[in-house]
């Protein structure tokens, strides 16, 4: 049985910037990033089953959006292949386009002079959805997403969150088989994010053969929603499994979280014996540093503590915890997420 999505050694390389720009950047010394060609996807092979809610987890620039754009027939692979609903994205886009839709967080699509309802209706017309059917679905979805009050508001009058809900409705209104969601809850408040997450989960679970590929920065979101998750960094898939299995992979390791006074000298931790990996984030407002250690066992804890106190810093809290997806990520990539 073909997969809903399958890629084989999918690679995408973006050409570097023009020479003239590089020179200017060098001259001003700003932004050293991607001057030469960028390998956004590096031999990615994944299989997403029909009916699966599949998550892609990775830091900024990992290649998540690039993958979605290729699958949505908007970008061609440099090498390798990608199939959606059994069709090659490069050779046979039409049957793919009939079956997919895509919504990205922070999208600014649509026309400001049209109302929310009209905008969604317009996009549904590009999929040939009969007007009556489309309007019926839109009204229903607007109720579900709590956008009914704003149905006749002009799009340019909508708040970011309301706009995002409208975009989600645009994604569902064409009744796709495969839906690509690129950080759908980006910048939403807790309630709005929950409504959207619940709807997505329910949409996949309650119907046969509805598939979602979702990218996110939010570990908890991926953990809670997804059947399987691929961890991607620098264009490479590092792991792909159920959230439980991913966490089990590092179960033999021990996770410690510390909150300490802001410390600068953290280099010594990485050379410590028994420290597999660690990450740190500074909480500037509280003048604290949060440290997460992935340890082979509890052995190094004493040494870590003495290193901190010898710098004259206070340890405010220390706890051993169940591994989260973030810990899996730290253990694989060697750095935190934010």
């Amino acid at each position, binding site marked *: 049985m073909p997969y809903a999505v399958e890629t084989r050694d999918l690679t995408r390389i973006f*050409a570097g910037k023009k020479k003239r720009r590089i020179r200017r950047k060098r001259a001003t010394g700003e932004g050293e990033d991607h001057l030469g060609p960028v390998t956004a996807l590096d031999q990615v092979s994944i299989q997403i089953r029909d009916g699966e809610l599949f998550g892609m987890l990775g830091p900024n620039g990992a290649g998540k959006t690039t993958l979605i754009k290729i699958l949505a027939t908007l970008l061609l692979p440099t090498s390798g292949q990608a199939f959606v609903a059994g069709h090659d994205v490069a050779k046979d886009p*039409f049957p793919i386009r009939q079956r997919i*839709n895509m919504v990205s967080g922070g999208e600014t699509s649509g026309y400001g002079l049209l109302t929310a309802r009209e905008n969604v209706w*317009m*996009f549904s017309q*590009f999929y040939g959805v009969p007007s009556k059917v489309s309007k019926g679905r839109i009204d229903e979805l607007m109720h579900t997403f709590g956008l009914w009050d704003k149905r006749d508001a002009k799009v340019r009058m909508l708040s970011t969150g309301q706009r995002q809900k409208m975009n989600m409705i645009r994604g569902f209104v064409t009744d796709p088989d495969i839906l690509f969601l690129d950080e759908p809850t980006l910048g939403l408040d807790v309630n709005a994010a929950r409504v959207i997450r619940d709807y997505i989960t329910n949409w996949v679970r309650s119907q046969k053969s509805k598939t979602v590929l979702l990218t996110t920065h939010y570990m908890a979101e991926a953990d809670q929603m997804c059947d399987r998750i691929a961890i991607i960094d620098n264009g490479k898939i590092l792991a792909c499994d159920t959230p439980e299995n991913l966490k089990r992979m590092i179960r033999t390791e021990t996770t410690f979280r510390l909150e300490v006074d802001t410390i600068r000298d953290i280099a010594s931790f990485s050379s410590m014996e028994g420290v597999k990996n660690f990450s740190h984030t500074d909480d500037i407002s509280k003048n604290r540093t949060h440290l997460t250690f992935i340890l082979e066992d509890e052995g190094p804890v004493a040494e870590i503590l003495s290193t901190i106190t010898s710098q004259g810093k206070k340890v405010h809290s220390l706890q051993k915890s169940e591994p989260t997806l973030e810990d899996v990520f730290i253990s694989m990539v060697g750095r935190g997420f934010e």
Partner: protein
Amino acid sequence: MKPATVRRTDLRYRIGLNLRAVVGRSYPRIVGANREPSWIFFEALLPLLGIAAYVFIYQSFGARSFAAAAGNTTAQAVISANTNALIASVVLGGTMVAFWLNVLWSMASQLYWEKEIGNLQLYMMAPMNRMALLGGMAVGGMVMTSMRAVSTLVAGILVFGVIFQVADPLTLLAVFFAALIALYGLGMMFASLYLLWGREAWNLSALMEEPIFFSSGFYFPVGGLFRVPGWGPIIAIIGSFVPATFGLDALRQLTLGSTAFGGQLWIFDVKTELYILVFMAVLFLILARYSLRYLETLAKREGKLTSRHQ
């Protein structure tokens, strides 16, 4: 895989899909654009100012020649007939300016702008034919601009007391639509080129505004250019690649009578010009289709179909 819903691919389905897409894409132009009543002032009445400037110049030239020909009533009759025909030419051309501006700014540069706000990727991802997208833009633009042009024309007729004589309304309609389709076909072709050129394209549009007003003869019968020795005919021939040139020439012949200006200022007869316009319409539509297909593939390869920050 057993698809959740069986998707149709037959011809009837495809026609329905693409007709819906055309209606959908033209909707924001027809309905949305008229939501702001200010268009009546900015887009229907303001163009009268540009027209008025030429009308006054032609009137004062006419008055001077009229005075110079004092005593010769035949000459005076010819002069006043020519002045009236010139003013009518300006009102007609000034009205049609709206279409050229619409083609430049809402067709040619449109896809670049759509890319910036993130609509383009949604259009390109949809199963509709790309020509339905361009067609929807064009139909919407034609309807919207026609409303503006008719308002300007009516206002111009009332303000400047112009009289048009339409002897052959069917040919007039045929010429108008052939010119319009050719003009928007050109716009569709540019739209796909701009997809790749991006920002530079804006400058090109700005560059093509005023010079085309001149070379296509929006404010004077373009045949006059052929009578300017040296550069005149060259400019006129280059300008003729914009369908507005033959369109305006034929429309003026059909509304002023081909004997106006002593029949001296026309390029070809109406029939020939109509054939040229039809040929241009077909040619530009075909070119638009192939250039968009080619450039879409190129853009997909280079990663230029979507804007970076989307």
